[in-house]
């Protein structure tokens, strides 16, 4: 009986010592810090992802995937264009948006390279917003032909992308950063409008050419019909600014 009592006292004393040690430990807050924010559930706006009830049927059309056609086009490019194409591809892979070659080597591109860029745009997944917007930027800052105009008009005829993870499905989003996310969803469309704006600011005389003026107007009218208000507003702003 005495042995049991001694063991009990020893056990309780050890437990008490451990608790005292933990209480005065300088590392006690590290235990808290090792938790991740998601371990706790007291944020006011917990944004658990909920799939929305609706999907947009129109958005289910996939863009054609024609990698083979693109490879053939690249094979038939002149050597200088092939080098530029390699530069373009390496920038996309590296995800370095501030690569100086974007301005030094890719500012003036041949009509054949423009054709390859249209094709590349179509081979990219719709969720590849940065790469697709980059292609639109390269075409729109160097508008050369009716094909360029047609390419841009088609950007504003696309079905809108509904969420960053899947263009076909609208997901509820955290209001904290959803304007950034929503801007990325229309990055291709915005990239086109901002590039046109810069071009017209730098060279307003281009609008004296009635054909060019009409082509820009057609693009902006198309953009005003794109079903996202931020794109409509920007297109409207450009029409007002340049009296189109």
């Amino acid at each position, binding site marked *: 009986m005495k042995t049991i009592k001694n063991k009990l006292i020893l056990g309780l004393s050890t437990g008490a010592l451990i608790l005292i040690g933990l209480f005065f430990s300088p590392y006690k807050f590290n235990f808290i810090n090792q938790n991740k924010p998601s371990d706790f559930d007291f944020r006011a706006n917990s944004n658990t992802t909920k799939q929305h009830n609706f999907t947009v049927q129109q958005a289910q059309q996939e863009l054609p995937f024609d990698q083979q056609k693109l490879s053939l086009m690249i094979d038939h490019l002149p050597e200088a264009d092939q080098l530029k194409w390699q530069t373009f591809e390496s920038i996309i892979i590296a995800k370095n948006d501030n690569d100086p070659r974007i301005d030094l080597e890719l500012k003036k591109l041949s009509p054949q390279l423009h054709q390859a860029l249209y094709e590349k745009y179509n081979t990219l997944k719709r969720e590849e917003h940065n790469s697709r917007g980059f292609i639109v930027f390269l075409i729109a800052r160097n508008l050369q032909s009716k094909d360029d105009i047609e390419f841009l008009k088609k950007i504003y005829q696309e079905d809108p992308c509904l969420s960053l993870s899947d263009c076909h499905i609208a997901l*509820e989003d955290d209001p*904290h950063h959803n304007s950034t*996310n929503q801007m990325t969803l229309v990055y291709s469309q915005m990239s086109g409008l901002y590039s046109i704006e810069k071009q017209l600011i730098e060279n307003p005389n281009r609008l004296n050419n009635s054909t060019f003026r009409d082509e820009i107007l057609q693009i902006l009218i198309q953009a005003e019909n794109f079903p996202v208000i931020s794109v409509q507003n920007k297109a409207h702003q450009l029409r007002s600014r340049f009296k189109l």
Partner: protein
Amino acid sequence: MKVFISSVVFAVLVSSNVYALSFDSDVPKSIQEQMNQDLVFINQISGTKATPFHIKVFGDMVSGATYKKFFESRITSVGLDDCGGGAAVACVQPFFDPNKMWLTNNFIKFSHPQVARMMVVYHEARHSETGNSNWGHATCPRPFLDANGKDMVSIWTGAKLEGQPACDINYMGSYGSSTIMLKNISKFCSNCNEKVKMDADIYASDQIGRISRPEVKKAMLADFENN
């Protein structure tokens, strides 16, 4: 000797680009690499000008050194979390650790332009400031209307922003400071290419929409246009 000096110069250049940032062991290498690459991009920015609001928030002209100092004085470690789920790419929980930022898998999964990703990172870094009550957001007014008098809503879910803690009434907060940073990069960065300048303008022009006091927004627009 020449080789030695070149090596030292190279080492100094490389080390000046490296942020003093530690990653938790569970942060995937791909996320660590993207974060480091993004911070190197910011650190390489050069410029000799800035607007008065930029100087007030960041203490100096547009430059990588300015932004590096701002970030490093607030964030020293990075962990992995889902930040509440949804489309979040980053968050801070300053009550647990004011110097830690959490990144989500969306950081590399989603195809944001580099400038947009960094805007979120610097926005969150601003929230880490315990001394300024973490620059908590203001509740968006009811109604919260855009320039055309229409409700500010989530484009696809239709959820209104009114009543949500997703606005700023001061240009010094997270929305204001990240808008000022991007607008200044767009205007004054001397070694940014046209894409980066355009991206900075696109996202800044959108972000200013979260400033809910018209007089503050007007002052910010004047700061950008008059300087």
